[in-house]
């Protein structure tokens, strides 16, 4: 990731693809496209809240609990990919939008989950107070 870069945001991306982002408490030693989510990583409808305020799912049989970062509602979250054109180095172009962002922790570690999300919200509020 270069420091001096250019971000191209598509202002009219209403019809573009939209993903949800899930930050899971494990290390996946690969980066890339997958079609294995068709039958995996589905939320447990019985244990999850209907309004998505709490999501329960499983990774390799281990239960993980997630909460949405509602503080990002006032942001537009975009997925950017590097431009392949060598004439425009360090340029990233929007390819999709991110709908909701969930942060997960393993079952029993919900206190840390809540604490980290609260601290992040505080950070955003404090930055507004200091820099506005």
């Amino acid at each position, binding site marked *: *990731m*270069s*420091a*001096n*870069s*250019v*971000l*191209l*945001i*598509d*202002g009219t991306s209403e019809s573009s*693809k*939209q*993903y*949800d*982002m*899930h*930050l*899971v*408490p*494990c*290390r*996946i*030693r690969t*980066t*890339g*496209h*997958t*079609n*294995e*989510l068709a*039958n995996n*990583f589905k939320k447990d409808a019985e244990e999850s809240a209907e309004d998505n305020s709490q999501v329960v799912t499983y990774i390799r049989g281990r239960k993980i609990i997630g909460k949405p970062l509602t503080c*990002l509602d*006032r*942001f*537009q*979250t*975009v*997925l*950017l*990919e*590097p431009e392949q054109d060598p004439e425009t180095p*360090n340029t*990233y172009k929007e390819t999709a939008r*991110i*709908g909701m*962002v969930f*942060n997960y922790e393993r079952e029993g570690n919900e206190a840390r989950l809540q604490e980290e999300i*609260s*601290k*992040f919200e*505080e950070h955003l*509020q*404090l930055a*507004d*107070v*200091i*820099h*506005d």
Partner: protein
Amino acid sequence: MSKRIIALSKECNCEELHIFELPHSTNINSKSKLRLFCSDDKIYQIKRQMFSKGCAYNKTRDASNEKYHYCSDSKPLKSGILTNADERRDGWLLEDGYFEFTTKYDLCFSLCGALFSKAKSQDENEYQQEPRQFNELELESRFLMTRDLHETLIDNHDKGWSNIPTRILQNSLQQLCDTIEEGGDTYYKMTPSKITKWLANKAVKVSRSLPASIPLQKDLPEQVAGHAKLVFACNILISLVPQPAYQNLIQYSDEEVNFAKAFQEYRKYLQDQAVKEREQQLQINAAMKVGMGNGNTKKKALVTKRPVVTKKVTKVSKGAIDGFFSKKK
């Protein structure tokens, strides 16, 4: 180059954002440069957020509590998965589970850093040391027009200033500079006193909106609470300003606010509280021992009497066997 996920403020309407860097406003060597961009006469900072990771400030405490666990390569246990609700087969795995986000950035902090750019520090612990005198300010100490001051910043401080539009720079200079109007032009000169005044206003603003997690005691007397809030506000701003600016701030006073007194009074209150607590603890300890051993907890020193061994003294007299034939008493 890999994918980037950035949460942009909805106020950013630009379709093309040029990200550039400026030195960290604290002039602390270990702090990385600020990543900024301009949009609609405002400046935004890009930061990175990764969960399941402790901050440097709490590193020792987290390690002793085993709050966080990391991979063998010291990376946090956090990866990302992107799911497409419309097409589940379209998913992405991201080894590093983080995203970037933007917050507004007040350029005055960077101007403050530029003015005190000679005052480099290793970390904020140095801020508590005796104030150093900085007579030599990095920037030219004369009145300059915005354009000339901008060039001075580019030449003497950092090339990244060239990305700042003049009108944004001018807005910030108006807050931090003494000005002279001459021939229809405005000339600016940054002064430490103006910076301190601006910073004091910031600190007062922060003290009125402190984050909920700040460890502010709830049973503080009203006046002490006011002092404590100012102290915490200054300690929050410590991470954004260079050492001389912080030292000037904590000694600042005017007709509305007195930081020096706030620090002094709050410190005194904490010391008094500590003494009271110690006394209470002693009283509790004494109360708990009432009735035990008739109140006399001192052990008597044991006196051991050694048996006196009387040695027979053999008289020494002349002759080899005189001792054998000693005289009867």
